[in-house]
């Protein structure tokens, strides 16, 4: 396998701040991931900038979700999963035995494919994270965090009068925004999104995409998506995965207009996948 192609035009006006300084939020070097005997990711290296949206695209089973789940060590819950290589968040090896997984996951939040609010009230859903991390000193502070998070997730206007009602009573799109608010509430720096819109209708999807675009100002966002249009709409950088390898990674516009690899071109023009 070839090393991934990195565009020369990596530094673009779309994300000048992060890349100009050479600051990458997440970096990975030679990452291999195995599920038992099966290798899901082969020698993957990537640099993900802060305050930008990076999209992972690729056909099913290409390892994009697997790699995403490595970044906050959600794969730890799968007993057969083994990760080797180096993944740094803020220049700290997250697979270092000294690292606290709980701290890591507070810093690297996650939004899942299917909206999965806790079967509790809307308020409790958002307040749970700050509560277990001791982020709020009192009730009023907790209220503030909840309001701020819901506002950032664009759910405040819809939810402010029904905070005590169960989060599971919301519509699918609202539930997903509630999950985003829940992730934001613990002050993460990176937000991982695993196909966040795949269970939503186009209108709800548009709202989430709008939200992602706003959140980009403050967070490093990594999104896995099956929709190339979505990747084109929301992301500044796109990574194309195929059969466990990173084929191509670079500026989204470049990628969709002038991919350097034939496999990338075949995929984005719909010839396979």
């Amino acid at each position, binding site marked *: 396998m070839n090393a991934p192609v990195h565009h020369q035009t990596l530094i673009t006006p779309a994300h000048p701040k992060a890349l100009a300084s050479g600051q990458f939020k997440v970096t990975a070097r030679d990452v291999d991931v195995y599920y038992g005997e099966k290798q899901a990711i082969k020698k993957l290296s990537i640099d993900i900038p802060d305050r930008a949206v990076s999209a992972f695209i690729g056909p099913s089973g290409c390892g994009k979700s697997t790699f995403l789940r490595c970044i906050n060590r*959600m794969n730890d819950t799968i007993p057969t999963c083994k990760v080797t290589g180096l993944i740094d968040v803020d220049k700290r090896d997250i697979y270092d035995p000294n690292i606290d997984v*709980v701290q890591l996951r507070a810093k690297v939040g996650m939004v899942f494919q299917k909206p999965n609010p*806790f079967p509790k009230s809307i308020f409790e859903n958002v307040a749970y994270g700050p509560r277990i991390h001791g982020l709020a000193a009192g009730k009023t502070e907790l209220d503030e965090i909840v309001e701020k998070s819901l506002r950032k997730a664009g759910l405040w206007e819809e939810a402010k009068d029904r905070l005590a009602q169960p989060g599971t009573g919301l519509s699918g799109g609202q539930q997903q925004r509630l999950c985003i608010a829940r992730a934001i509430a613990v002050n993460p720096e990176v937000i991982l999104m695993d196909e966040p819109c795949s269970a939503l209708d186009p209108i709800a999807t548009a709202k989430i995409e709008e939200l992602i675009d706003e959140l980009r100002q403050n967070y490093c966002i990594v999104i896995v998506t099956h929709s190339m249009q979505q990747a084109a709409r929301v992301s500044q950088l796109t990574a194309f995965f195929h059969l466990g390898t990173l084929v191509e990674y670079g500026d989204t516009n470049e990628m969709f207009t002038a991919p350097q690899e034939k496999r990338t071109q075949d995929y984005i023009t719909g010839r396979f996948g």
Partner: protein
Amino acid sequence: MTEVRDELVKKRYASERRFRFYGAAALILTALFLAVLLIDTVIRGIPAFHETSVEVDVNVNAADVDPANLPGGNYDKMIKEAFRAEFPEVTGRANQKALTALLSTGGADALRSMVIADPSIIGKTVTVPVLLGADADMFLKGQLTDQTIAPGKATLHVARLEGEEGFVLTGEKTGEEAEKQLGLATGDVVRFQGGAVRVTGMQNGYLKADPVLPPDAAFSTGNFDAGQWDIVSFSVPQANRRINDNQALWLDKLKQDGRIENSFSWRFFQAGDSREPELAGIRGALVGSLLTVLVAISLALPLGIASAVYLEEFAPKNKWTDLIEVNINNLAAVPSIIFGLLGLAVFLNFFGLPRSAPLVGGLVLALLVLPTIIIASRAALKAVPPSITEAALGVGASKQQAVFQHVLPLALPGIMTGTILGLARAFGETAPLLMIGMIAFIADVPQGFTSAATVLPVQVFLWSDLPELAFKSKTAAAIIVLLVVLFALNAIAIYLRKRFERRW
């Protein structure tokens, strides 16, 4: 479009109809069996919830009661004397004994408590309800024999045989024709003014009868017109029943006088076991059952849930945990008597715990239901969608926080359902408790976890084994109580499931 062949479609529908019919038939058959069982049990058991007593005017004789020791008074004597006084015509030791045998051996209890409650009645005459013995009770409930009373239709002539204890009955005719004319059969009792005789059969061409309630000695002959005498006939001959003709007639008299009282038997729920059916109650067994199940559940619930949570959420998946899982499933299938043997060997013989005690019974039942609870709890934990765990982990909860704050609360309704069903099984379990001595006859209501006790299903077993007819309905009544408790437990299980069930 492809053409579907007609006969294939018909066959498919016919097959479905057949299946529905089989299903409905099986269901109806099951319901029928269940209905028969329940109705039969209820019909048999209902009489045991009622008791009969006779009102007796008792003179509370000061000589028989020591005011310093009220419970120790000779109330039995007072009751018996008072009851005999109700039947002055009954003479002779054997007859008087037969008369007082109608009363329960516990008949004086009511009087004793009256005197203890109000000692001022000593020396006065009071009306006391005296509990009747089980045989009298059953006779009055019609469980021993059917009794029919028919008024005499023709003129009856009764003559005392000279020199022997017998009478001759004639109508306008004698012998077999008299029998026909009077409507008498062997075994029937003829009641007339001043006495009663039982027809014994033909002798020397005359209808002969033995005295039941002998007319006074002066009586030699008498004529009784139609309506002045009657025939009492029993479906069960005297030799085959526990109440003889004399006793039956006395009870009839008491009943006619309105002295017999039929009341709800609170005693059945307040008394422990007894050798006397009319005194036996299920309180001992009920309390024993509650104590036993309390021990069982307070051990099995935390242990079972903790094991299930560990195995399901924390334990590494390797051959050891697989082995443990297989063995837990095996344990659930072990015959319950084996757990009894285990309890006998370990808790009684090795640890020297008291036998027949609810503590040991509870320990054994805890072992018995533990696999059930673990399996049910694991299933409930497994049913919680993994997305909930992921969500909790995703915001930085530790594994333990995710399990105890999110997964376990969601699994709890399922766990409770499984636990209550396990509890119901423990409640109905008999065999293992036999092995640790909970089958002993225990008259006292257990006072604590270590006092000797028995449990409801064992009580059913014990009573069903007793020869007295009266215990048959006690058995059915105990079964009713057991079933009511079990139905209540199941109802709670269903309620909990419906109440706390969450959907995603």
